[in-house]
Structures are given as structure tokens and as C-alpha cells.
């Protein structure tokens, strides 16, 4: 088991180094002729209008919150799913009740209008 995660650790390091090698190759052979016009921010060919860091739309926060709740729920469902073959019907129904409670939360958010993109 310790060997498995060592493999993943090595994989992480090598998977980072190989794209870095590609970028270093590109840096070695590419021309470097910078001028301010090339380096200006792209906005469909015109000068930029306004600040570059725009206001953050609040609706993204709502979706991230709903995603967080359901993501944690699915992580909790993984052990239940793995051991489902050995569980009695009572335990299976208990897991189903857990999912139903969270679906009730989704329906509440739906009816409150939190899932609209306004």
C-alpha cells in the first residue's frame, strides 16, 4: 500500500517535469522580441476600457455553495456504495433516506429561486 502512493508521488513529479521540459524547449528556441504593443492586453483589437478585474457576479457564489453541499454528500456516499453488497435492506434504506434529505434541500433551493441565472 505504501508502494502504491510512492508511485503516485513519482507520477506527480514526472508529470510536472515533462510539460516543464516542453516549455523549456520552447523557451530555448523561440525568438524573444518584446515591444509594448505586442504585450498589451487583447480586447478585440482596441484599447482596453475600464479596470481589468471586473465585478464578480454573485450567482457564481450560490452555485459554488450548492456544489459544495452535494460534493460533500457524494464523498459520504462512497463508503456506503462500496459496502452495499454486504449491507442489509435496512442499511440500504437508511442511505436512501440520506440522499432523499439532500434532494429535499435541492428542491428547496429550486423553489426559492437560487438556481436561476439572473
Amino acid at each position, binding site marked *: 500500500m505504501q*508502494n*502504491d502512493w*510512492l*508511485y*503516485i508521488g*513519482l*507520477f*506527480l513529479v*514526472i*508529470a510536472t517535469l*515533462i*510539460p*516543464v521540459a*516542453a*516549455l523549456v*524547449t*520552447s*523557451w530555448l*528556441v*523561440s525568438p*524573444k*522580441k*518584446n515591444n*509594448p504593443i505586442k*504585450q498589451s*492586453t*487583447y*480586447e*478585440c483589437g482596441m484599447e482596453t476600457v*475600464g*479596470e*481589468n*478585474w*471586473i465585478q*464578480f*457576479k454573485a450567482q*457564481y457564489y450560490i*452555485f459554488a455553495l450548492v*456544489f459544495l453541499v452535494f460534493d460533500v454528500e*457524494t*464523498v459520504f*456516499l*462512497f463508503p456506503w*456504495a*462500496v459496502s*452495499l*453488497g454486504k449491507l442489509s*435492506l435496512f442499511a*440500504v*434504506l437508511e442511505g*436512501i433516506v440520506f*440522499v*432523499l434529505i*439532500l*434532494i429535499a434541500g*435541492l428542491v428547496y433551493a*429550486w423553489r426559492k429561486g437560487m*438556481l*436561476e*441565472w439572473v
Partner: protein
Amino acid sequence: MNFWYDPVNFIAHWLTSLLTGWGVAGWIASVIIQLIGVVLLISLMMVFDIFLVWVERKVVARFQDRLGPNRVGPFGIFQPFADIIKLIIKEDITPAGADKVVYNLAPILSMMSVLLLWAIIPLAPVIFGVDLNVGALYIVAAGSIGTLSIIMAAWSSNNKYALIGAFRQVAVLISFEIPMIATMLIPTILAGSMGMNEIVQGQQTVWYVVLAPMAAIIFMIAAIAELGRSPFDLNEAESEIVAGFHIEYTGMKFGLFFAGELLHAFTFGGFWAILFLGGYHFFGLENLGPLVAVIILLAKAMFGYWVIMWIKYTMMRIRIDHMLAFNWKFLTPLAFVLLMLTALMNTLLRGTSTGVYILGMLLTNVLLGWIIVEILRGYSRGERQKTEGVAPATATAHR
């Protein structure tokens, strides 16, 4: 053990005996052998990625009734090499005011998150990177690094259109992770384990696409959204017709994003094949040897990739609010209802014979699919009556 039936272990044993014969300590030898395996796997994947560029361009050309690249080699097979050489020698223009560290790290992380997924794919019963017992959770975790790299790329680009495109793209990516995880739980239930090897072994008698076809369909839809491909590709051509979160990237950095996206698509074709289409099983043909099993798995992954490309080049792009409504109001409840039904039917039909089990699961899915189609018909009838009035649609159709 001989080379044909167990190549990885054969080579590993030979290398271990060679290294310990030279006086290297046992554990250093095993680390070196793992390192060689890792480098080999990643290099093979990057080379295969180049081949995928050719496949993609030929297939998109055929869908659009034209030929695709056919000048650069026989059937244009050297075209991706020309592309890679062009991208490497292009000038690297960094926008003024960009955050240098994050700007350079984003394409590296994007490619890394895709390469990480290949550590757990079982290419054959004896050829795989590592047999993690938390494979399904690992897929979700490694895939989320790619989501992070999109926000990193856009935020450091000092460009408001990159930021808008990336916000929308990440909202879609995190939303569609929920149906994807929920439908990934279904092969976990049917196999009794999260590990990829066990899920493939569990499909020896019957593929999971027969036991849970709706889960396969929902997983495919959620995976296409996760990849950021059409019809869910907000990052291309949505932010004022330019390239979305990678507007300010040139040269090889853009090449890493682009090639990473294609490899990601092929990887998810591979996961669809492993989770639902039986992995390397093909009516006993995989017992001929590990090489045959690898070819079978790659063929199925290519089939999954072809389905993804087919959907991409056939359907139009969906608007962001329709996309999010489709996920939260349709796919997520459907995925959870399917999960509950599968768990219930699995428990109720656990002791019965194989034929009754298969038939029971298949009928549950077909029944759920029929109910969903009826609900959708009713919903679209309601929407149509709101805009066209209550007259039936076939009133003036016949002369």
C-alpha cells in the same frame, strides 16, 4: 512467468536482479524501477497525444464533408508533428501586468492533471500503473486540478474576457461534477469496490452498460461537460469570439492546453470504456495475452472518444443558463434517483440468478428512462403551449 503473459513483472524482476547484482540496495532498485515505469507511461501518453491530434482533425473533417490534412505525409499523418514544431518555435508573448508565476504554472498544471489520470487505468489484467483501492475518488480529485488551472490561467492573464470566460467555464465544470460522481458510484455499487481493476473484473459476465444504461448515458453527458467540449464549450468562441481563458497564451503554452484537452477527452473515453463497456473484456479474447487486452481497451477508448467527437461536431453550443438549469434541475435529481433505484434493486435482487438480476436491472433503467422521457414531453408541451397557444401541434399539419 514468461514475457508474453506477464511483461511488466518479467522486466521488473530482470531489472531488479541486474541492479542488485551491481550492489544497489533493494529499496533503491524498486524506486528506480517504478521511476522507469512512470517515465515510460507518461512518454507513451504524450506521444499518443500527438496521434490524437491527427485523429481529431481527420474525424472533424469527415463530419464536415471534407478531407482533412492529407499533404504532410501519407494521409497527413505527420501533420501533428508539424503542428508541435510550429508551436515550439513560436514567440512566447506574455501580456504586460500578468502574474508571472501563476501565468506560467497554469498550462503545466492543466497537462499534469490529465497525465495523473493514466496512473490508475488498467490496460490489461497485469499491465497497469498502480492498483489504487480508491480509484474512483482519485479520478475526481485529479480532475479537479484541471479546473483550478483554468481559473489560474484567466486570473493571471490581466484580461477581463479571459476572466468572464473562465468564471462561466468553472461554474459549468463544478456543476457537472455532481452527476458525474453520482453515476460513478453506480459501477462502484455493482462491483463492490472503488478500484478500477475490481470494476473491470466485475464485468466478466456482463458489461455494466447492460445493467445500467442510463448511468452510462448520464456519465457521458457529464463527462463531455467536464471536458469543456461542445456542446458545453464556453471557453471557446463564447468570450467575444476569441479563445476564452487562454486568450493571452501563445506558443507551447497554448499547445499544452490544446493537447491536454484532447488527451483529457481520450482519457474520459477510456474511463467510460472501463466503467461501463467492460474494460479489456471482450468475450474471452483478452486471455490470449496482455497485448491483446491493451489493444481491446484502446479500441474501446477510441470508440468512446469517437462518441465524444461525434457529439461535439453535431450539436450546437448551449447557453450558460440553459446549461446550468439542465444540470441542477434535470441531471442531478435524475442521477440521484438512478443511484437510489440501483442500490434498492441491487439489494432486492441480490440472491437471484444471473438472468433475473440482469433483466431486473435493465428493466428498472428502461422504466426510469421512459418516465423521464414522458416528463420531458410534458414539460416541452407546456413550454410550447405558452408560446403558441393551446391548439394541438398537428391541427394544420395535414392538407
